């Protein structure tokens, strides 16, 4: 098990280095000289040159890369080119917002998706199962921002149950925090719930038809225990989908953060891209990769626990 964990950690670190290095060079190629975007077009050439020197942009690209990498390795992502505030501080402010929404959305997808998936697996062709099929068609056909707007219109504007925009930190108010993340999370979770439910339902039916299940039933096991065995065998695929969804929802958070005006990493990525604030972009990339690595690592651990054969791969 230890070598399994070590291998997964090594591959995670390698992924982090490769992705952030690639982003560094791609961002520099795409942004070009950032000074007009950062200073505005009335800046004089001398003012632009001064900024280039201040941010180290006047140095060779490889030197800039080494400077960035050597600091990033110690956890220091430098300072923003826009406001010269530490990138770490900005990300630290933003991460809780995005994580709140994405974790809540994933939890909703897990709880509701698993419940619906099991229910549909137990009664294929039933009312709930047909409803799931319809929901999968409808929800995938509808754009995410449209779903968000419908939720805002109903629950924020008409009913006034939830705020239409903004984020409340749990330090300020726990109920305020829950209310501020509910609509964004639900709008992110709707499609995910259907995906998890479908995956579990299909896996459940596939496993339920296997010989060992028939044997279990023949041995006189109760429905409840048979279901537990089926669920354990059907769960790896659903867990994988759930982990992939978490990663996908991190990306999908950009749209939701804009619609709900949330100060998360999605909206920070958008604003940093617009003005060419490369240190912030790199910091955000690194943080996102770390999340992906952690989630995949946890998934591997869980799958390894569920099915020991996985550990040998």
């Amino acid at each position, binding site marked *: 098990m230890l070598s399994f964990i070590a291998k997964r950690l090594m591959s995670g670190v390698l992924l982090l280095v490769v992705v952030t290095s690639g982003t560094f060079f791609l961002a520099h190629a795409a942004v070009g000289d950032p000074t*007009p*975007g950062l*200073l*505005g*077009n*009335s*800046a*004089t050439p001398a*003012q632009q040159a001064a900024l280039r020197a201040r941010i180290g942009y006047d140095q060779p690209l490889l030197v800039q890369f080494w400077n960035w990498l050597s600091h990033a390795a110690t956890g220091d992502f430098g300072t923003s080119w826009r*406001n*010269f*505030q530490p990138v770490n501080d900005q990300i630290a*402010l933003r991460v809780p917002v995005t994580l709140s929404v994405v974790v809540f959305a994933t939890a*909703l997808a897990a*709880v*509701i998706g698993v*419940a*619906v998936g*099991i*229910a549909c697996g*137990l009664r294929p062709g*039933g009312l*709930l199962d047909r409803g799931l099929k319809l929901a999968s068609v409808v929800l995938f056909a509808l754009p995410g921002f449209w779903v968000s*707007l419908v939720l*805002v*219109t109903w*629950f*924020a*504007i008409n*009913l*006034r*149950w*939830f*705020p*239409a*925009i*903004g*984020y*409340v*930190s749990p330090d300020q*108010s726990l*109920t*305020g925090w*829950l*209310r*501020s993340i*509910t609509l964004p999370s*639900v709008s992110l979770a709707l499609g995910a719930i259907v995906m998890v439910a479908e995956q579990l339902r299909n896996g459940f039916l596939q496993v339920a038809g296997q010989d060992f299940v028939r044997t279990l039933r023949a041995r006189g096991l109760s429905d409840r225990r048979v*279901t537990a065995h089926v669920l354990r065998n059907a769960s790896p695929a659903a867990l994988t989908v759930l982990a992939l969804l978490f990663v996908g929802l991190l990306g999908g958070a950009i749209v939701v953060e*804009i*619609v*709900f*005006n*949330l*100060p998360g990493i999605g*909206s920070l990525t958008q*604003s940093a891209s*617009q*003005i*060419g604030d490369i240190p912030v972009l790199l910091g955000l990339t690194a943080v996102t990769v770390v999340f992906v690595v952690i989630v995949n690592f946890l998934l591997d651990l869980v799958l390894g626990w569920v099915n020991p054969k996985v550990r040998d791969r």
Partner: protein
Amino acid sequence: MTSRRTSALVAAALVAVGALAGCTSAGGGGTAAGADTGELKAGVFLDVTSWDPASADIGFDGPYLSAVYDPLVALDKDGKPVPALATKWEWSADRLTLTADLRQGVTFEDGQKFDAAAAVANIQHLKAGVRSGQAYLNVASASAKDEDTVEIKLSKRDDALLYQMGLGRSWMASPAAIQSGALANGPVGSGPYTYDKAGSTPQSQYVFTKKQNHWDTATYPFPTVRLFPITDQTASFNAMLSGQLNVQFANAANLPKAKENGWNIASRAASWVGVQYADRTGAQVKALGDKRVRQAISHAFDAAGILNAVGNGSGTVTNQVFSVDGQVYDKSMNDKYKTDMAKAKALLKEAGYPDGFSVKMPMSPIFAAWQPAANQTFGELGIKVEWQDMAMPDYQKNAPTYPMFLAVIALAGNDMATLTDQVTTAQWYNPTPSVDAYPEVKALVEQVEKAEPGPAQTELLKKLNAELVDEAWWSVWYQADNTYFSVKGITVTPVTGMMFPTLRFIQRG
């Protein structure tokens, strides 16, 4: 049995979410009902550019900076400079020296005193500033005559200086904070509000608390001000509908809904929309150096149609860049380039381009709404446009290198400022003012710049405006309004030149 239990679990989860919402909605928080005017909660289109007034933008930074800084000179609703920290001022006979008396008893948040030395430090800082420096191009020096008097000497007469200062280029910051570079981390001013850094979330919500002993406290009625930068106009409108905002920078498309809600609606001309020529001498594309070609382009566009289709009808069809609310604007000239494709083609033919010509133009997503109309019109005229797509920051950087480009350019609320901003001074959107290449224009500009401010100067500006329209200096389609919604009990007075007005223009009433 199992399936029933699972369904019950799903139902319980949904009920729990509903219950959470239900039991907390009575608690108020951010969703109090519509007409809550206890505090100002304004949705601003953009985030604050910088807390350092030298690095800040004029456009949408006004509300943020006006909360925490006092200006040397302010503007009234018509763009006329009025006293603030400078209580009165006087020009020398040659209008090359401005002497201003300063308010006494004002201190900055860090305890530093506002006096002539502080004003001089600020003016020098603003003159050196990356963004603010544009307003002080003609300022040679500033000095303290005594503790409460400052003297500004100009290298060249500048009748728009006080206007530019009032527009958002004379916010006074603590000299110690300027010296130490602390303004990048947060404001240190003497303004009517204190920035609540702990209660604010940068780029999401800024909270300000009113000072009880500010010298101009009567102008600022709200005990608390919350400013929300919201770039997505749908999100902003939803927040207004839900009661989270009581003032918003609005999209004119939502006007019917605003009327339905009984909100106050305020609009005023803010920018001109059309084609900007960066090559009026024909250095890149010879045809554009011929005024008949530019006139042909002006005749070809269906400006009223574009205003209705793209601008939601919120604006005024005109061919002038002097604000429709100003003294120089001449309504009677608006018929000069009535939409007439036949006339446009005849003018092109007369200029020697019967089959049109080819030109490259930049394009960015935010101009995409106007692109089909431009493409069709240029096409009908025989002008073959090769659009070159780029992101918005690249558009601002590169557009002026093209011979012409689609533009939405801010208007000035002062006619002399319009002359400098749009005609005589190099700007990002006007990199090579070509006044020298047009003797009639040049002569009128010189006369305007030498004239006595007041009616005489205005008359000359009118002549210059007529000449510029005749030369088709720009192909202006319309002047677009900025619109603001506010709930009953709060009024917003828009000011041309400020994309979002400063807090002195947001009042109860």
